[in-house]
């Protein structure tokens, strides 16, 4: 108990005043010498004591009157629990709004059941408590960050915030991040008991239990919260007793997101069954935009099994296209029965070819034949530009997606820095030194001056096959650059013969990949990634001097595949992962001034602009990203410059509705979580004196008033009784 005005406590000795008066009155008691003692002694002892009781009661009332008065002036503060109340509670409602909460039980969704739990929860809180709410989607976000008094208006507001759903929702809950955010929030009041309640569908996914360090940090915060704490998870009951059929499209991917005009797009949809019993066969439909492309049948799947359906479809128009696969609906979660992917049909990707003017190898001609033309006007995917090594210094490399260098010259030394920057920022470099290349100069430029080549070429003359040409092994190792080349049924890589080739200096660095080897296992083509960009170095030229490559079918495919592979990092991304961050450069004069992202749920957020040059700005979109379609609009001077569409994939595990149980539940309990209506572990980390306190002065004044009235009534009753007795009203006279 604390007092606001302790000085008044010095008045407490006044409580002794009635006692003193009482004792003085007793000392003044009249002594009567009396003879007829036997008649007094016969009087009922209780009757004799009753006066004492009344007297003492009167004394007590007077003491209480003074005590109440003094204490009321001292303004005592007592813990609210003493008055039948409770400590101030600082409730943070964390609502799981992930995709799985849209499961329909048949008339009622999980989310609606969550709202029922929310209503029951809010009903327990009074106006002395505080409420805040967090919404959990791909990232936790405060709906009401400031703690609000738990009055009916606040409850209605919280309910409204947590009930409204905006359109389709493919999000994946990050409970861990949400709970971290809740526990790091400032307390509503210094003494409020922190209560974090997560209302969820009970799905096992989304807890990131492998992040034990973060969970332990939360657990420690819960334990150490100064004014007491509780971390509770309320789960929607799934006890409908039905076995659920839950087929879902976990992924839809295109072989390449950017394709050439007329080039078939390879689509693969993965369909997995998360239900508890074997599924029935289903129909899937392919769509390009709103146009249906075809149908396929998914065979019955056992629980946990998955299957893949594929489609190849050429696109005859340049631009971004949306492919969609939909699964015939048959379970309570229809929203995960579809998958989407964006594909761009590109034209005119610039490629720079650095070649010898003499072109003894004729590589330039073959490349020109493969790419179509070195003129800008042709309709091919890649637009090649040929320059001599001496001209490299005057070229703005950022304008190209990939650079093919077939001839090395000392004059390139001054451009090596730019070349390295070009690669690091996502450009592709294909080093295919021709027969005129000096090994030492190559190594000096691409290994010593700029660490670009994956490996150094071995010193000395190239390896020459005297009698039999060397054969090339089809690639076995899975690599994105060789998937198509490995198809020897359609292509003729197995017919590639080398008369001469450079070898790479041994040992090879560990960070490279070998794309092609000879039959003896000698590396012929190696690749490595340097930051965003990629570099391919091959030990034989692209012309006819050392191999029969230009004469094979595979030549064009190889050129395209590897140019796609090299150019891909610099191409705009269309499909992003939810945890990815993506940064791209926007060329515009004058430079753009703003970039706004419109998220799938209709919200807008400003994106960060990075100054990457005089006329260039990079736009950064940071994850975690909400699954679904995002539109990023960049503007300059208030006018829209460009709108770019992105598709963020959803988390496949979100479709798995398996519930928290067993070890998972125990593990979460070990982190301080209480489930449903379990009794919370008592966590009172501070002495009672520091809990919410209420002033008693009003009650003390009321008490004083009551005691005063009682004292007056009792005193007047006694006086009246005495007066009546004195007047003899109550008695009949003695007869003798």
């Amino acid at each position, binding site marked *: 108990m604390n007092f606001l005005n302790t000085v008044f406590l010095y008045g407490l000795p006044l409580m002794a005043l009635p006692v003193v008066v009482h004792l003085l009155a007793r000392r003044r*008691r*009249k*002594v*009567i*010498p*009396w*003879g*007829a*003692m*036997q*008649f*007094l*002694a*016969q*009087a*009922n002892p209780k*009757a*004799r004591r*009753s*006066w004492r009781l009344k*007297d003492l009661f009167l004394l007590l009332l007077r003491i209480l009157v003074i005590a109440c008065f003094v204490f009321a002036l001292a303004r005592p503060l007592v813990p609210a629990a003493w008055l039948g109340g409770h400590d101030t509670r600082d409730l943070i409602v964390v609502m799981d709004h992930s995709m799985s909460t849209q499961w329909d039980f048949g008339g009622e969704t999980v989310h609606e059941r969550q709202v029922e739990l929310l209503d029951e929860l809010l009903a327990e809180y009074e106006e002395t408590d505080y409420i805040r709410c967090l919404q959990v989607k791909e990232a936790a976000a405060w709906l009401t960050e400031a703690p609000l008094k738990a009055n009916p208006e606040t409850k209605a507001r919280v309910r409204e915030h947590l009930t409204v759903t905006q359109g389709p929702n493919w999000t994946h809950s990050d409970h861990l991040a949400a709970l971290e955010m809740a526990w790091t929030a400032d307390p509503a009041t210094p003494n409020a008991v922190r209560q974090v309640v997560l209302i969820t569908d009970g799905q096992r996914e989304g807890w990131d239990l492998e992040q034990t360090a973060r969970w332990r940090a939360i657990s420690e915060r819960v334990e150490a919260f100064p004014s007491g704490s509780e971390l509770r998870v309320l789960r929607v009951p799934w006890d409908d007793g039905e076995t659920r059929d839950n087929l879902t499209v976990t992924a839809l991917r295109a072989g390449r997101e950017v394709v050439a005009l007329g080039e078939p797009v390879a689509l693969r949809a993965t369909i997995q069954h998360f239900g508890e019993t074997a599924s029935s066969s289903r129909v899937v439909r392919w769509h390009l935009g709103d146009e249906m492309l075809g149908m396929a049948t998914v065979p019955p799947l056992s629980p946990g099994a998955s299957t893949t359906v594929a489609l190849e479809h050429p696109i005859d128009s340049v631009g971004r296209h949306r492919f969609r696969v939909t699964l015939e609906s048959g379970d309570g979660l229809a929203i995960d029965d579809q998958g989407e992917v964006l594909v761009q049909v590109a034209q005119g990707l610039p490629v720079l070819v650095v070649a010898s003017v003499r072109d003894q190898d004729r590589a330039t001609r073959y490349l020109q034949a493969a790419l179509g033309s070195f003129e800008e006007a042709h309709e091919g995917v890649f637009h090649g530009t040929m320059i001599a090594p001496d001209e490299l210094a005057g070229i703005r490399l950022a304008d190209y997606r990939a650079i093919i260098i077939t001839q090395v010259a000392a004059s390139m030394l001054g451009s090596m820095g730019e070349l390295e920057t070009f690669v690091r920022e996502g450009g592709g470099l294909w080093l295919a030194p021709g027969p005129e290349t000096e090994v030492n100069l190559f190594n000096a430029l691409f290994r010593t001056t700029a660490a670009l080549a994956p490996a150094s070429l071995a010193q000395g003359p190239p390896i020459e096959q005297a009698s039999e040409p060397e054969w090339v092994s089809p690639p076995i190792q899975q690599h994105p650059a060789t998937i198509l080349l490995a198809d020897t049924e359609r292509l003729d890589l197995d017919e590639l013969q080398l008369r001469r080739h450079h070898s790479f200096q041994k040992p090879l660095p560990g960070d490279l990949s070998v794309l092609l080897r000879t039959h003896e296992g000698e590396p012929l083509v190696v690749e490595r990634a340097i930051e965003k960009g990629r570099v391919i170095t091959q030990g034989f030229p692209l012309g006819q001097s050392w191999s029969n490559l230009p004469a094979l079918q595979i030549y064009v495919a190889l050129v395209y595949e590897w140019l796609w592979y090299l150019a891909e990092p610099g191409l705009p991304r269309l499909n992003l992962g939810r945890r990815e961050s993506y940064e791209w450069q926007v060329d515009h004069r004058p430079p753009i001034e703003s970039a706004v992202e419109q998220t799938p749920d209709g919200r807008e957020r400003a994106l960060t602009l990075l100054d990457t040059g005089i006329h260039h700005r990079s736009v950064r979109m940071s994850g975690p990203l909400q699954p679904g379609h995002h539109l990023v609009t960049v503007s300059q001077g208030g006018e829209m410059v460009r709108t770019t569409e992105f598709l963020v994939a959803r988390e496949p595990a979100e479709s798995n509705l398996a519930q928290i149980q067993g070890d998972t539940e125990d593990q979460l309990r070990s982190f301080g979580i209480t489930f449903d209506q379990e009794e919370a572990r008592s966590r009172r980390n501070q002495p009672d004196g520091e809990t919410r306190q209420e002033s008693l002065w009003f009650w003390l004044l009321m008490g004083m008033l009551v005691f005063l009235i009682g004292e007056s009534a009792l005193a007047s009753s006694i006086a009246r*009784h*005495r*007066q009546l*007795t*004195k007047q*003899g009203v*109550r*008695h009949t*006279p*003695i*007869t*003798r």
Partner: protein
Amino acid sequence: MGAPHGFHDLVLPEDQASLADLEFVATQIVDGFMAGGHRSKMKGGCTDFAEHRAYSPGDEVRLLDWRVYAKSDRYYIKQFDEETNLNAILVLDTSGSMGFRLDNPSKFAYGRAACAVLARLLLGQRDPVGLAISHLAEPTYIPPRSTATHFHLFLNHLSKATASGPTNLVPTLDEMVRRVRHRGVFLLFTDAFVDVPALEQKLRVIRGRGHQVVLFHIMAPEELDFAFSASSRFQCLEVNDYHLDLDPVVVRDQYLSGLQTYLDQLKAACIGCGCDYLPLTTHEPLGETLANYLRKRSRQSNFVRTR
């Protein structure tokens, strides 16, 4: 007969005036030492003629009225009222409770005055008067005398008596029964705060010996109405260090109820034994009260006595 020294200290002048011409008359025939011998009880020839009655065998021949026989030829016995002296024993209770007083004289003082008045009256009639002071520590007994100097002795003892200590009334009466052989009258001045059945038994014994008993029951008005209002300490007058702290208002009903029961028992006991019960209250004028009583007694005496 002039008032002896000390009398005026004991009796108020107005009480003396009201008692001046009164004559104490016994209502029963008692053994009188004036008539003497064992025949005193018989109708005898000493004093006043009373009546005739028919002779029956066994009567003394000397008592025949020969004149009546001469006239009527019938035997009648001539009867006389024998006038004897009244042998009175005055018993004064000097227990502590008799010392109670508030606004009026104490019961002891009141009783002592009554003793003095009645002693003077009786001695004025030349009736022997004895005194018994019922005191546990210093009991006093003066045998009945009717001499002129006896009254001085009587008053001397009376004035030396004080009210203190426990009551000793019943043992005193027991002692008196053993000592007093001549039948007479016992005049008890007491508040009778004793065990009523024990007192009743003793009175029966006294009455059985042929004595007449008058119990002057002296009470203070405060004892009768108990009109106290302040919480007080009631200090016992008979037992040292015995007191009761109480609120009179609370116990008054029970006190008065107990007192009324006691008074009823006492009165019934007296009447049942053939004793006279005379309630006295200390705020009443002593002379007037005694005069009224003696007038009443006198009328009753006239009823049985032919003079």
